[in-house]
C-alpha cells in the first residue's frame, strides 16, 4: 500500500481517537460508580464506603485530566485533516459536537471542582448531587458522541442544503433506533470498565494481603455489577448487531466473512479470510447458525460480500477478527463475573488465589473489548466516512501533503506516548499506595478545575487529616 496523506490521516485519527477513548470509557464508568458509593455511604453510614470513594476519586482525577487533554485534539482534527468532511457535515455534526461542549463540559467542569475540593463547603446532600452531576455530564458527553457517530453509521433526517448536508429533521437525528441501542451499548461498556478495574484492584490487594475491608467492597461491588451488566451488555450487543444487519448489510457480511449468499446461512466461528481469493481458509463453521443470528430464522437467506462491488466493501480481516476478540472478551468477562460473584457469595473467594489472579488480570478485558468493538464499527463502515453518503477518500483536506501528515502523525505519537507513560506511572503509584489510613482532606483554598491536583494532597502541610475509620 502506498504511503499517502490519506492513509496517514486515517492512521492518525485512529491513533488519537483510540488513545482518547481509553480515558472517557474509564471515567464514565468511574463517575457512576462514585455516585453509587457516595449514595451507599449516605444510606448506610459505613466509613469504608467513604474511604473507597476518596481513593477512587484520586484515580478518577488523573484519568479525567488525560481524557481532557486528549479530547482537545479531537476538536481540531476534524478541521485539520478532514476539512472537506467538516465543511459538508458541519451543519449536522458540528452542531451535535457543539452541544457536547456546551452541555457536558459545562456540567463536568462546574461540579468537578466541588467533588474534589468542596466536601467541607457544601451540605452532604449537595455533595452527592454534585457527584451525580459529574456522572451526568460524562453521560451527556457519551450521548452526543454516540448520536454523532450513529449518524455517520446510518445517516437519517438530512437534506442537501446549498452544497452541504443540512438537518431536515432533528427529531430523527436524535431519536432514531440506532442511537438508542448504540448509546446504551457504549454506556454499559464504560460501566463494565469501571466495574472490572475496581474488582481487579480489590483482588490485587487481597493477593498482597492488604486493605481487607476496602478490597472486599471493591471486589463484591465490581463483580456483582459485572454479573448483572455483562448479560445486559450481550443483549445490547445483539441489538447493535441487528441494526448492522438491517442498515449496513455489507458490514454484516464482512464481520461474518460470508463471501456468497447462503440459504440457510452458516456461521463462521473462526477462519482466515482471503480477500484476493474471496474465500476463507481453515474455516470452522456451524450450519444454519448464521441465519439464526442474522434473522432469528432457520431458513433465511443471508447476503454475501460478492453481492457488493469491490469498491464498496470494507477490508475484511480487521472487522472479522476485532469482532471476535470483542465477543471473546465479553464471554470471558461473563465467566469471571459470574464465577467470582458465586464464590464471593459463598465466602470462598478470599482463599482462592487462582480466582483472585484471574480477576486481577481481567482488568484490560473491557478496554480491549471497547477498542476492538470500535474498530469493528469504524473499519466496517469503510470505504465510507458517512455511510452511503460520503467516502472517506473524499473527506480529506484536498491539499494535505504527505509531508505534513507524516510530521503530525509522528508528533502525536511522540507526545501521547510521553504523557501516557507518565500518566500510567502516577495512576500505578496511587493504586499501589492503596486506600490507606492516610486519607487526607484537601486544603481550604483548594483548586477546582485542576483534575490531577488531587494527587498532591498528601504533600500539603497542615491539611486536616482523617483516618480510614472516620
Amino acid at each position: 500500500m502506498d504511503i499517502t496523506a490519506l492513509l496517514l490521516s486515517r492512521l492518525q485519527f485512529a491513533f488519537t481517537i483510540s488513545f482518547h477513548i481509553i480515558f472517557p470509557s474509564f471515567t464514565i464508568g468511574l463517575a457512576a460508580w462514585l455516585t453509587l458509593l457516595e449514595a451507599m455511604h449516605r444510606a448506610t453510614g459505613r466509613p469504608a464506603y467513604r474511604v473507597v470513594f476518596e481513593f477512587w476519586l484520586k484515580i478518577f482525577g488523573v484519568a479525567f485530566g488525560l481524557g481532557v487533554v486528549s479530547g482537545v485534539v479531537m476538536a481540531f482534527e476534524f478541521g485539520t485533516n478532514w476539512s472537506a468532511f467538516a465543511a459538508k457535515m458541519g451543519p449536522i455534526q458540528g452542531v451535535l459536537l457543539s452541544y457536547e461542549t456546551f452541555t457536558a463540559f459545562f456540567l463536568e467542569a462546574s461540579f468537578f471542582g466541588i467533588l474534589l475540593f468542596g466536601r467541607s463547603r457544601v451540605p452532604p446532600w449537595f455533595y452527592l448531587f454534585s457527584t451525580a452531576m459529574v456522572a451526568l455530564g460524562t453521560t451527556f458527553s457519551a450521548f452526543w458522541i454516540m448520536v454523532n457517530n450513529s449518524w455517520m453509521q446510518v445517516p437519517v433526517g438530512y437534506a442537501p442544503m446549498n452544497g452541504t448536508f443540512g438537518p431536515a429533521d432533528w427529531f430523527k437525528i436524535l431519536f432514531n433506533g440506532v442511537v438508542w441501542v448504540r448509546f446504551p451499548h457504549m454506556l454499559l461498556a464504560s460501566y463494565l470498565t469501571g466495574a472490572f478495574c475496581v474488582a481487579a484492584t480489590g483482588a490485587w490487594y487481597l493477593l498482597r494481603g492488604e486493605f481487607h475491608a476496602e478490597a472486599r467492597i471493591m471486589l463484591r461491588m465490581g463483580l456483582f455489577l459485572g454479573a448483572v451488566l455483562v448479560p445486559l451488555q450481550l443483549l445490547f450487543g445483539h441489538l447493535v448487531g441487528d441494526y448492522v444487519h438491517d442498515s449496513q448489510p455489507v458490514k454484516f457480511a464482512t464481520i461474518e466473512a460470508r463471501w456468497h449468499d447462503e440459504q440457510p446461512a452458516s456461521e463462521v466461528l473462526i477462519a482466515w479470510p482471503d480477500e484476493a481469493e474471496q474465500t476463507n481458509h481453515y474455516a470452522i463453521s456451524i450450519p444454519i447458525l448464521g441465519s439464526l443470528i442474522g434473522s432469528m430464522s432457520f431458513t433465511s437467506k443471508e447476503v454475501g460480500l460478492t453481492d457488493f462491488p469491490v469498491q464498496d466493501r470494507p477490508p475484511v480481516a480487521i472487522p472479522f477478527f476485532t469482532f471476535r476478540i470483542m465477543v471473546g472478551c465479553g464471554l470471558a468477562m461473563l465467566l469471571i463475573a459470574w464465577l467470582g460473584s458465586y464464590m464471593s457469595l459463598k465466602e470462598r473467594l478470599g482463599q482462592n488465589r487462582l480466582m483472585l489472579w484471574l480477576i486481577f488480570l481481567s482488568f484490560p478485558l473491557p478496554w480491549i473489548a471497547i477498542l476492538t468493538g470500535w474498530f469493528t464499527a469504524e473499519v466496517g463502515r469503510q470505504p465510507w466516512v458517512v455511510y452511503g453518503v460520503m467516502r472517506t477518500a473524499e473527506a480529506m483536506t484536498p491539499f494535505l501533503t504527505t509531508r505534513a501528515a507524516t510530521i503530525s502523525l509522528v508528533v502525536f505519537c511522540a507526545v501521547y506516548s510521553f504523557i501516557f507513560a507518565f500518566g500510567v506511572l502516577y495512576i500505578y503509584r496511587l493504586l499501589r499506595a492503596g486506600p490507606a489510613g492516610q486519607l487526607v482532606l484537601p486544603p481550604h483554598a483548594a483548586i477546582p478545575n485542576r483534575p490531577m491536583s488531587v494527587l498532591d494532597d498528601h504533600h500539603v502541610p497542615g491539611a486536616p487529616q482523617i483516618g480510614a475509620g472516620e
Partner: protein
Amino acid sequence: MVTYWIAVLAISILLYVLLDGFDLGVGILFGATSDETKRRAMLGAISPMWDGNETWLVVTGVILWGAFPPVYATLLSAFYLPLLVMIAGLILRGVSFEFRSKATTARWLWDWSFAGGSFAATFIQGMTVGALVEGLPIRNGVYAGGDFGWLSPFAVLCGIGLCLGYMLLGASWLVRKCEDDVRDNAYRLIPYLSVGLLAFLLVVFGYALAGDFRVMGRWLERPYLLIFPAIGVIAAIVLAHSVRHRRDGKPFYMVALIFVAAFGTLAISFWPYMIPFSITIDDAAAPHASLAFMFWGEGLFVFPLMLIYAAVNYSVFRGKVRPTADHY
C-alpha cells in the same frame, strides 16, 4: 440567528484571549525565572483557572464548526502545521501543571514543557492572526498556499507581538494575585513590556501601510473606527499611572482593555468577512435549521449558565494567593 452566533463567537474568542492570555503569559514569564519559590507562586496564581480558560478555545472551535463550517474547515486545514505545534504545546503545558509536583528527578522536564508549551501556543496564535490580516492565499474558496503558505515576516512579527501582549497580561495578573518578590518583579517588567508592545504596534502599522494591506483600506473608509485605538491609548495612560502608584488591582483591567480595543479593531477591520477577503459571515453561516437548533438549546439556556459559572469560579478565588494556601 447569524448575528446571535457571531456575537457568541466574538464573546468566546475575546474571553479566550483575555483569560487564557494571562495564564499563557504567566507560563512564558515562568521560563524567565529559576527561583523555586517564585515559580510556585506564579503557578498558584493561575492553577485554579487555567483549565476553565482553555475551555473557551474548545467552545470557539465547536461554534465555528457548527455555525460557520466553511470557516472552521478552511482555517484549520490551512494552518495545519502551526496548529499541530499549538496543540502539542497546550498538551505538554497542561500536563506540566500536574506532573511537575510529582516529578522527583525530572522536574526540569516539566518546567521546560510548561514554559515552552506556553510560548509555542502563544506564538502560533499571534502568527495565525497575523497571517489572516495579511491575507491567506485562497483561490475560489480553497486554500492554495501549501504547507507553509501562512509563513511570512509579518506573521512571525505578530507571533512575537502576541507573546509580548500575553506576557504583559500575565505580568499584570501576577501583580494582582501575588505579593512580595513576584509582584515587584512583575511591576518592573510591565513598563518594558508595554513599551515593547507599543513599538510592535507601530512596526505593524508601518508594515501594513508599506505593504498596502487591504485591511488598511477599511480604516480610510471608516474613520470613526479610530475610537478603538483611542480607547487603547487611554487604557495605556491609566496603566502607566496605576503602575507608578502601585495599585495592584488596576493594571490587569487596563491591559485587558487594551486587548479589548485591539480585538475590536481587528474584528471591525474584518467585518463582514470572517476570512478576509474571501469568506463573509453570510457565506459561512450554516443553514437556518442548524443555527436555530443551536440557539434554542445551548444558545439560550446553556451559554448564560457557562458565563455564570466562570464568574462564580473567579469570585471564589478572588484576592491574593496566600502562600499557606498553596498546595505545592
